[in-house]
């Protein structure tokens, strides 16, 4: 599976070539500390993440502790520690190749599908370990919903798409399936659009509808956490708007972890934002603070577009 990994990183690199970190040294605003993150990264030194105080009072659904990850020889995550607060939307931002998607995919162990991945560190969901010899990956994934970058409905009817996670559990009760289907589609704001063609192929929907179908599929399994991996990057602005509204609606009842490239989106939809850079978690705090008054100069550079 080596080639898979190579392809993955190649794709990412081709899409967004990474600017050299120290290429520009912008003017430092007066209120920010000189944290020296660039320097630390350059010298491969560990440094502490700037975690805002607001996060300390939150109860976390997913807890990540000192998490490292390697693709073969190449290290992609360095000592990441963070919690994902309950019933809140947490956004992961950062330049391409910073490891935010990698981190997201570690939560439901999608990285297991890539042969050469090696990890170190702790990760728990509701205090249950995610990694470990006794963990049943399949049961774990059932507790976590995931929506991908490109809409990926299955080649089957809309109905079957939504109840897929129930089908694989062997549920045959038709009334229950229909109930879950309707509830999930309503939850994903798709019910009114598709209720008359539930038995047509899910591939016949538009891109935005397909993505909402995928969200319906993710919430049908009643997950504890929903992972969104750049869910709007393949959609037009109107479809994006709908998904963002949907994320707002889901926020109260689900814990959401979202990766996004789009900083406006992060500021619009999330309660907390984590800024990552070259595999390190740099700053993590309430979205408002991160975008308006970050603690670190590097974060400010990124969110204001001076770098990244």
């Amino acid at each position, binding site marked *: *599976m080596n*080639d898979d990994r190579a392809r993955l990183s190649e794709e990412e690199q081709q899409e967004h070539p990474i600017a050299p970190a120290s290429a520009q040294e912008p003017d430092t605003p007066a209120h920010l500390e000189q944290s020296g993150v660039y320097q630390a990264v350059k010298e491969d030194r560990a440094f502490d993440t700037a975690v805002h105080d607001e996060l300390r009072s939150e109860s976390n659904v997913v807890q990540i502790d000192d998490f490292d990850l390697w693709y073969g020889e190449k290290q992609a995550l360095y000592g990441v520690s963070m919690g994902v607060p309950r019933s809140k939307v947490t956004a992961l931002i950062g330049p391409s190749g910073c490891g935010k998607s990698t981190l997201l995919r570690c939560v*439901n162990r*999608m990285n297991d*599908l890539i*042969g050469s991945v090696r990890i170190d560190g702790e990760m728990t969901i509701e205090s249950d370990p995610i990694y470990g010899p006794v963990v049943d990956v*399949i*049961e774990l*994934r*059932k507790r*976590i*919903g*995931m929506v*991908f970058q*490109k809409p*990926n*409905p*299955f*080649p*089957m009817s809309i109905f079957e798409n939504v109840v*897929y*996670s129930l*089908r*694989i*559990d062997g549920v045959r009760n038709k009334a229950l399936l229909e109930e879950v289907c309707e509830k999930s589609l309503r939850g994903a704001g798709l019910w009114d659009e598709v209720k008359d063609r539930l038995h047509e*192929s899910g*591939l*016949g929907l538009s891109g935005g509808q397909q993505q909402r179908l*995928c969200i319906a*599929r*993710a919430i049908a*399994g009643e997950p504890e956490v929903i992972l969104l991996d750049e869910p709007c990057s393949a959609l037009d602005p109107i479809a994006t708007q709908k998904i963002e509204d949907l994320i707002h609606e889901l926020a109260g009842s689900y814990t959401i972890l979202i990766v996004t490239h789009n900083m406006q989106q992060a500021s619009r939809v999330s309660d907390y934002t984590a800024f990552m850079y070259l595999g390190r978690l740099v700053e993590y705090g309430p979205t408002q603070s991160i975008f308006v008054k970050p603690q670190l100069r590097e974060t400010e550079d990124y969110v204001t577009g001076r770098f990244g």
Partner: protein
Amino acid sequence: MTTTTQVDPGSHAKRPAPKRPRARSSLFARGEPMVWITGGALILCLAMIVGLLAIVFINGFAAFWPVPIERVTTLHGKTLMGEVHDKDTYVPTRAQVAELVPQEKVETIFAAIQEEGGESTRRSLRTGNFELTQTNFHWVSDFEVAEDTQPEWATLLERLTWGRFYGFPKEFRIDGKVVASGPAETWEQFEKWHGELIDRYDEREDLKKGPLGDVDKAKRAAAKELRVVELDHGRFSEQYAAATKVFDAQVAALDKEREPISEKIAALQAENDRYVMVMRTADGVDQPIRVADIVRGYQANQQGFFGKLGIYFSRWHEFIWDDPREANSQGGVFPAIFGTVVMTLLMIIFVVPFGVLAALYLREYAKQGMLVSIVRIAVNNLAGVPSIVYGVFGLGFFCYIVGAGIDELFFAVDLADGNPTFGKGGLLWASLTLALLTLPVVIVATEEALAAVPRSMREGSYACGASKWQTIRRIVLPRALPGIMTGGILALARGAGEVAPLMLVGAAKIAPELPIDGEFPFLHPQRSFMHLGFHIYDVGFQSQDSVGTRPLVFTTTLLLILIVVALNIVAIWARARLRKRFYT
């Protein structure tokens, strides 16, 4: 391309360097010749395929069209009558001319031929009447013809035995008494009685195959039981004596049962034997022919278009639905059609699941590496092994090892009498051999189809908590199904047209019993079967009368092509339906 005229003469220093000459005018740079080369290659391929199909289709569809009967009288006074079968041009030598025409005319005729360039045309007449002339065909050169007519009452009879008869109806006899004479009256009688006689003949055949066959089968079963006792206890044991008694009683009972059936058959036969039509050949010989032996008769030179059309379709009907007669040179090919279709479907049933499972492991489960690459290369290379090698393998492994093993375990009695059941070529072994032959096609196509399933779909499934097998079964396989079916279609086309291995593992010149019939267990995988491809070879190259059977080669080929096309169309239709379901 210098631009001196456009440059201000005062600014020589800024004058741009002369441009590199562009190959704009080069024909190759524009790609024009490639259009012609690629197009030409396509046209060449198409021309060859269309040409091949045209030969098969024209000859195949024309083969059964009734042609006029010609009566030719030679200068020697010999009279021949028949259908023109073939024509060609040749350069006769003086000796050849001398052989064909009377002594006194040789010089003048040879001179006339020389005057016209030395060439002469000749035709091959299909004269039939094999029992009288010991030959079916005569070459007649144009220069030896004295008279050439198409007589109104020239009649063609297609018979159950001895092939075709060309002659004139002379008289019709019932019980040896002449009831009609003269062509018109005789033919009237023939048409009056013929249908009835054919019905009676069919009834007789049904009795022979049905009740009589059942009785004989029961007899054989009884004999086998006795044989089992003999093998178990010995010929001089008490048990054998007891069994012999039982056997004798059984045989007596069966013989009693047999008697009325045999009588009925004999009666039908006797009734049919009363009707005889005397035919007079072109050279005046009278030949009595039993009417029940005649399959079809008509006056070719009296037929209008619709009459010919009727004969044409009646011949196709016979060809498709009847059993072959006369060492396959007459009659139909129904058992071959049946055998081909059953064998091909059985092959598909074997090869597709096997190939798909193998490809699944290779693509989904196996760790991709050196070993898997080697296996993949080996599989691809299997597709290049000559098919006869598979035949040899099938014979050696399936028939002589697996089949012989089955015989020893379950059919020891038959084996002891020298009748292998599975230890010889048969439908099952032929299907398995061809399944092996087409396996690489299915594996390669399935692997491609599996690889083409988007990674995102698998990830989506895993993210929902599906296991690997659930993902394969619910997402990957449905999505890959059209691709897998493409593999099946290719395998089908390859397998249906394959002949060489079949010669070794079960195709027979004549297989009286179909591999599927009403007798338990309905499918008889041990039986040998007829196959259209093998039939083509047999009729075209193994027949006594290979000139006469040439039209059958074309019609059989046509049929085989049409069957393969029909099977393919069904598969392609199914695939299109699946595509619609999974891709839109």
